[in-house]
């Protein structure tokens, strides 16, 4: 329900996020060292890296002015490592460049080309992916002789194909988005759409992938040189240093440590930078997303009215929520609310998006996302639920309190048959097994009005319609005859004709089992069908509660009345045509009352 905040990320924000991110800082530093080492090695090295000094073989680090010591020929290891950075960086950059130059056009062709052509490109990609970079690089090196360019070419091509696969999925995602549809409807040509919408939106992913290509290219270069197919002698490569020093590993183990460390740190740098880039450009992971304004109905600020505290005697309450406050990431999203439900009572919890109504429900079941701070008290049957360990809460969930969720399409496990899922609470709480639970599942399926229950329990969730899936959700929730059923917008995702049936079913079953109902919705018309009492929430507070009739006709809070007015204004009015029909009112509909509910922002 809470929409993702899209990345409007200007470059500066990304940079700032990168620096704040620990990964970004470390990765950036490592890459900066690698990048800095190259120009340094061109103008200065402590010693000539290729100079053989017969007088100083096998020196340990810090001896004779050799920072990292010397090898059997007396070559200065530090100078060698420094010079080796050229090969690594050059191959990393060249590979990334080639991969991008090859991968992007391939991806565009595979995603946007004519259907058959695109299918062909996809096939080609799938075959080419089976050729590992190292293998191709070895063969190319054998053909053209080892050099930076054969290595970078082979690595670039191999990872270009990988990149194409990832970029294609991204392009298809963006191409299927509404804003591309809107652009097309605005007359944007394919190329303009690619330039203005697709490329900017896949750029973050591409950047991340390219930094990963650089990491893998560095690794592959090392392996290639180690195997003897890298750049020939005068060039220095960390991989070949490793190869050259391996025979002396028992005598001078440190000599294999330095070049390996150099490779590892470079790769680590590229990887961390890539991870940090991904986090910095993913708005969902950004630590503190900039606050987007929420739509407000502007009403006069009145103090909460009618929040009559617990009108029931303590012992009669099934659920008593007192001073419940929920903070997520430092923001107070539910702010000290009180709710009470008597056994068998039906309470409608009304509110618009961001009012905190769903979080309240999740808090009752102990299902809040990790990191949410909850204070106050939630008592069920007089027993405090807040602060109970997960294991004990699980024992209450599904047996005493159950919940039906908003999205029937995603609420069921797609890899498990319907019957199994219906029987799950019975297996958990009633200890049913095998046949017994299977039979119970069929009974429950029949009870919630699913057609052909004996067959249906063997179906998979995706084979059911939305309404049927919501019936399954209800069956799961009511399997153990809970004392309290929480329904969070159970019909919002459904068609009206289905909605009516689901509401009727919920009401009937709850009534029959004596289950209390906490019905959460934004829709006043819906809630008026299944509630005895209404609580209105707004920005984390219950601003008003009372009997249904009173709220509908004589609400105290201005907000409630504004909400009602807006709902009436946009609702279908069956009586509008009573006199108009025949007279043929050409402009049907009641004048909406938004002038009184003020304009937005």
């Amino acid at each position, binding site marked *: 329900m809470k929409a993702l905040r899209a990345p409007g990320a200007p470059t500066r924000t990304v940079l700032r996020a990168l620096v704040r991110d620990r990964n970004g800082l470390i990765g950036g530093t490592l890459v900066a060292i690698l990048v800095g080492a190259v120009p340094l090695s061109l103008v200065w090295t402590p010693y000539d890296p290729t100079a053989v000094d017969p007088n100083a073989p096998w020196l340990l680090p810090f001896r004779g002015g050799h920072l990292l010591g010397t090898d059997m020929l007396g070559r200065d290891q530090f100078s060698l490592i420094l010079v080796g950075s050229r090969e690594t960086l050059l191959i990393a950059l060249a590979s990334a460049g080639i991969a991008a130059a090859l991968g992007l056009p391939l991806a565009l062709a595979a995603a946007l080309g004519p259907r058959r052509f695109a299918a062909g490109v996809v096939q080609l990609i799938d075959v080419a992916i089976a050729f590992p970079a190292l293998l191709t690089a070895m063969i190319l090196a054998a053909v053209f002789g080892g050099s930076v360019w054969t290595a970078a070419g082979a690595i670039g091509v191999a990872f270009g194909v990988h990149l194409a696969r990832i970029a294609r999925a991204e392009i298809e995602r963006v191409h299927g988005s509404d804003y591309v549809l809107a652009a097309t409807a605005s007359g944007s040509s394919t190329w303009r759409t690619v330039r203005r919408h697709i490329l900017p939106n896949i750029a973050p992913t591409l950047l991340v992938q390219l930094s990963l290509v650089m990491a893998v290219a560095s690794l592959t270069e090392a392996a290639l040189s180690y195997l003897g197919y890298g750049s020939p002698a005068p060039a220095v490569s960390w991989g070949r240093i490793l190869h050259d020093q391996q025979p002396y590993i028992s005598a001078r183990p440190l000599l294999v440590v330095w070049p390996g460390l150099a490779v590892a740190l470079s790769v680590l740098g590229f990887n961390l930078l890539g991870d940090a880039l991904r986090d910095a450009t993913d708005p969902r992971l950004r630590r503190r997303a900039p606050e987007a304004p929420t*739509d407000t109905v502007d009403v006069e600020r009145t103090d909460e009215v009618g929040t009559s505290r617990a009108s029931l005697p303590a012992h009669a309450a099934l659920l008593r929520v007192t001073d419940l406050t929920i903070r997520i990431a430092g923001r107070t999203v539910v702010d000290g609310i009180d709710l009470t439900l008597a056994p068998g009572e039906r309470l409608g919890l009304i509110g618009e998006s961001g009012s905190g109504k769903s979080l309240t429900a999740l808090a009752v079941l102990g299902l809040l996302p990790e990191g949410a701070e909850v204070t106050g008290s939630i008592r069920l049957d007089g027993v405090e639920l807040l602060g109970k360990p997960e294991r004990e809460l699980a024992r209450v969930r599904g047996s005493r309190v159950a919940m039906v969720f908003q999205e029937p399409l995603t609420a069921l496990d797609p890899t498990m048959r319907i019957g199994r899922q219906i029987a799950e609470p019975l297996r958990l709480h009633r200890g049913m097994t095998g046949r017994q639970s299977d039979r119970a599942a069929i009974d429950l399926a029949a009870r919630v009005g699913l057609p052909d229950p004996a067959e249906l329990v063997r179906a998979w969730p995706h084979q059911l319609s939305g309404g049927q899936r919501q019936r399954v959700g209800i069956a799961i929730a009511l399997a153990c005859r809970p004392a309290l059923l929480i329904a969070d917008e159970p019909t919002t995702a459904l068609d*009206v004709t289905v909605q009516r049936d689901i*509401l009727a079913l919920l009401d009937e079953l709850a009534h029959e089992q004596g289950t209390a109902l906490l019905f959460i919705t934004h829709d006043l018309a819906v809630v008026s069908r299944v509630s005895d009492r209404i609580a209105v929430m707004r920005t984390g507070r219950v601003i008003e509660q009372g009997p249904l009739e009173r709220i509908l006709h004589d609400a105290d809070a201005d907000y409630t009345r*504004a909400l009602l007015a807006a709902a009436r204004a946009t609702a279908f*009015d069956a009586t509008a045509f009573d006199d108009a029909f025949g007279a*043929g009112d050409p402009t049907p509909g009641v004048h909406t009352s938004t002038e009184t509910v003020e304009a937005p922002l």
Partner: protein
Amino acid sequence: MTAPAVLLRAEGLTRTYRLPRRSLWGPAGRRYALRGVDLELVEGDALGVVGESGAGKSTLIRLLLGLDRADAGTVHYRDREVRPGPARSLTWFRREVQIVLQDPMSSLDPRSRVRDIVAEPLECLRVEGDHDARVDEVLAAVGLDPQTRTRYPHEFSGGQRQRIAIARALAPDPRVLVADEPVSALDVSVRAQILDLLRDLTTRLGLSLILVSHDLGVVQHLCNNVLVLKSGEPLESGPSPQVLGNPQHPYTQALLSAIPTLPTHTPHPKPATLTKPAAPDSARPAFEAGKPGRRSTPPSTKGPAPPAQRARLRPPPVGTSEDPGPGRRPECAPREGPWPPTKPKSFISASTAKPERSASTPASPSWTRCAKRSA
């Protein structure tokens, strides 16, 4: 009195999708997303297309807008066929017909600034004139502060974003607006505002509207004609009072009876004073006056959109005696219209005549408050 021109006409629209094969040798199955849909949008009409999920509403929109190729059937705009093809070949059509999509969270490119989003159709359709000025104009027309043009979509609320989307659609000065569930992603209170804005704009600009929705309330409030779809097939169509007031098809009847309704509003002592007391009283009458042809208009003739009445609310259709001819109007050129006599030359100035929506009047706290908050 000439009959109003038919703007958009669809005949026998059919679209099928291939199903995956069930067996190696059997033919691949086909599924109809749309089957033989006819539709006619008369100038000045507001046509509601109603249906539940799987009714083929989205497919219909794609076909009507030339975004997808029909398996059978044709779409004509002013008797010229709309053939899906390269963007350039449809420029003439896109200048006339624009779209507002359902979810304003996804219909605006997160990496574009408001200015670029709204100017997009101007650029793509090579509309002449000062694009920046035009962007400011339409932003003001939808009740947004033109200053917001440099911001990114995520800085706006859902309702504001839908206003941006509407501004984009209005930018090239189209004659037809196609709205795909324009309010179903919004909160109830915002929904009413956006509906009002849509109604206000279509009336003021003389736009014709195709509104696709599953919500009969929305259709009832905006449309004078209705087409009911189910599983891709048209079931019933006609003037809204007829279809919604006296449905013939059992499905339409079922649909209507399933709508949850609030218990009827009984008058109660406390008047719902929702406006700020501080709001100048003078604002309201002016606003009401700016919206003729609403409830205050006495029911006149039977049937859809009495032409005489509606024609007064918009410039005369192209090709009639009052208009130079089929040629394209120059961008933002004055549209001559007989009513109201004082109607300003461009519609934007018409909007500034309304205090609540104007960009400069302090009486409207709408965007000014936002600007302050962001400042």
